[in-house]
């Protein structure tokens, strides 16, 4: 059930963000990222679906320019539903950074984590209202 991990990779396989909701250990994490890149970067996104079987779970991914947003979910989860989580996340990033690009994520990865933590907790979606989430994040920033 639920999201097992979320990673953002660029086309070269560089990790831009990784959030694990199950404990698998550092080395396993690195291995998984490599495998995911291999699995996903070779796919033809026009002809192929956005779902890939991965070990005993399923990867749901979307590509935005040079970045792959990948969620790993259980086989019994609604893959179409989780596919909608990615645009939700990206649209929030887009509003926040006023047109998000890879560099925004590279230099502000800790902010991206913060935003993600407002959308997903422990692998579960906690809110889907973009306005509330954004207002919350703006309020956080006032502390800085």
């Amino acid at each position: 059930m639920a999201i097992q991990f979320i990673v953002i990779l660029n086309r070269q396989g560089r990790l831009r963000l990784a959030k694990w909701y199950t404990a698998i250990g550092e080395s396993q994490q690195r291995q998984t990222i490599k495998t995911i890149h291999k699995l996903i970067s070779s796919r033809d996104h026009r002809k192929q679906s956005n779902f890939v079987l991965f070990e005993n779970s399923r990867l749901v991914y979307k590509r935005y320019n040079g970045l792959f947003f990948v969620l790993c979910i259980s086989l019994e989860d609604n893959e179409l539903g989780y596919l909608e989580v990615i645009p939700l996340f990206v649209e929030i990033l887009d509003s926040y950074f006023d047109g998000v690009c890879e560099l925004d994520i590279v230099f502000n990865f800790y902010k991206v984590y913060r935003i993600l933590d407002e959308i997903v907790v422990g692998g579960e979606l906690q809110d889907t209202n973009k306005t509330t989430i954004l207002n919350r994040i703006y309020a956080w920033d006032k502390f800085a």
Partner: protein
Amino acid sequence: MGSLRSFIRAVRSSRTIADERAVIRKESAKVRTAFRDPHLDEPHLRKNIEKLLYLYILGEPTSFGQVECLKLLTSRSYINKRLGYLAAMLILDENQEILTLLTNSLDIDIKSTNPYVAGLALCTLGNIASPELAKDLYADVDRMLDNDPNHSSNISTPYLRKKATIVAAKLIDKDPDLSELFIGRIPMLLREKSHGVLLGALHLVRETFIHDPTSREILRKQAPVILSHLRFLVSTGYSPEYDVRSVPDPFLYCSLLQTLRCLLDKDDNNPNLEALNDLLAQVCARLENSKGSGYAVLYEAVQTIFAINSDSSLKVLGINILSKFLSLKDNNTRYVALNTLLSVIEYEPLAVQRHRNIVVGCLQDGDISIRRRALELTFAIMNNQNIRMLTKELLKFLGRSEEDNDLKSYITTQFTLACYKYSPGLEWTFHTLIQLLEKAGDYFSDDILSSILALTMQNEDKELTKKLVIHLIAASSSPDAASEFGLSLITIWCLGEYGDLVVGMPNYKSGKLITEKQEVDQLELLLNASILKKSSRRDQIRLYILTASLKLSSRFKSAKQIEHLRQMINKFKNDTNLEIQIRAIEYTEIFTETKTIKRGLLERMPPPPRKEHQGIALFDREAGREKTSSGESDQKKDTGEMLLDLLDDEDDVDDQKAEESTSGNAGISESKNGALDILNDIFGDTGMSHNAQQPAKKQSTSNKDILDLFGSVRGASTTKKTEAVDKISIPETAITAYDDGNIYCGVDVESIGDGKANLDIIVKNISSASTINGITVLCAVTKKQKLDLSALTQRELAPKELGKLKAKILGPSGSKVKLRVRLSYNVGGEKIQRQFDFAGIQKRL
């Protein structure tokens, strides 16, 4: 000391990987040194933790900074605390011992009056909770769930409640006993209006339901509330903050449906089912024409339709939605639709059938995973009516898909089995199989090839056999087709077995008459074509050619062609493969024997018994991995055995040949040893001596196979009416076969002679007091004989009672009756299984 920003810049501006490594190593070392300083002040600690996080993203080891993260999150500054928690969530996980040091900070921070701090702590707990943290902190989380307006003093904000619900669910996952505590909060939480809290509450319901079976009845009572939320969502208009492309909060929709499915699954008498049925119909109607996220909701609704006890009209609606998914351009919806159709075909096979054309259309899809699923679905919907039409599509698929080689062996296996099952006629089957062999002959498994040979032998229509052989000759005479392994093998075998029958008949392709010379040439052509194959396949073809040549030599008339065949066998005497060499030398010996001996030895093969084949699955659905793989191996064993049976007979020929050449005995009778060996093979008993030439793997035939072997006999015979029998006394003529103090087993000869025997097998309970039940008697006879076994008159015997079963044996006259019997029964709660041989009948058939 540089900042995080300059570190990131330095990494990015590195020209080579070596440069980059150097930058990272240097920075990593700096961070480690800083952490060693016991007087590191907070601003510096903060900077270093920032860098540590970047190291984490770069995939560098970061566990050395765990303690520092914990230090930072105790800071009084909110910003530092925030960074500390962020780092803790990334660098720690529930398996780290150091996590216990986090308990106190979390405890303090969750209680904080600052909602941001409390939120941070909750979020951290939700992400890395361990069973220990769950035990220590559940009370804090429980307090956060409180939304009763009467407790206004400590009521939490919806912002914290939504986090707390998810955290509570997580804690239940870590410590299922906590469900008892949190379940009390669920009714109030489900009454919340905030979508965030509702999402969390629904998740909490599902987790509780899964982890705590005793909670299920209580949770099912909440179904009406969840239904009312769903009803509201269906009837509600536009709500800007939650709509995703004009679908009102698809996430909440999915969660509501998922929860209802979870609650009402397998609860066919739930009073809320009717309301859910209505709502599902409404959801489908409302979202039918929506796009994007609407599909996600529709998909969730369809899954719910098939999980709960829904109306059949709703199920048809579900299938229609899926078929609409299939017809869309979007690969994702097609993918889920095929997956779902595969799992629901058992509920509504007819409704799925109606969308056959769309399914078949997906065979041409650009996405391999869609093609795979479409293929599996095609086989799933195959039946007597549509096999002709689907066959055309599948052959087209095989002809076109160069890239899908890994799918071909799946197709050949499934297709061949489907042919056996749904074929409109044997001629059609043979015709189709030849086309299949032509197109994908390299992708047949040995098991399937041997099953095709078995089918050929079982066919009693000689004219059809001739047609088959002529077709095979025509098909394999083109150079392309000759290199297809499966086609070559079948052709060679059929030439050897039936080649003489078609001499003088016209070839379909060329119109010329088939001559003996042409057949020999064909063998040679196939031999030459096999050179390019990998060695195991090449050797297999050579072995088949050897046997075919020998067989043909006894049936051909032209001395020139027989000589040609002899030379062919002779050539193999120098083969590098030892087995081929041995075989060639043996065969040259046989070649010199007189015609009568050869005729007898090289008779046509008797038809092997029919076997059930199991299909294979391409995918493991719903974690059925083990099931599928065992199914696959069963099937392999099953058909593999058939191949062994064929080989067996060849070996027997060799055995007999060996014996005869020493004893000079011209008659072909079954030697005692041979018969025992055959019995051995049937039972896979490793305790008895084995023929050296038989492949070693034969010994691994498991007992289960016996059951498979006899399963059909048993199944068929139980339907027969059983006669009333004398329940007490054993006939005087009965010969005792077995007696263990509990049960007696004897054989009474009713009649014997003229190649058949009618036996009564008597089973009697001879124990003093205990009832014996679950009695099964399985018998086997030698291979040349056939056995027809009736059902046991009763499977349960009271003391002194007896049961009978009739055995009819058919076989060559003069052969001896030998039985191997497997007897199993339950007595006093213990399952006993015995096996014994019986050869006590003096008369011969």
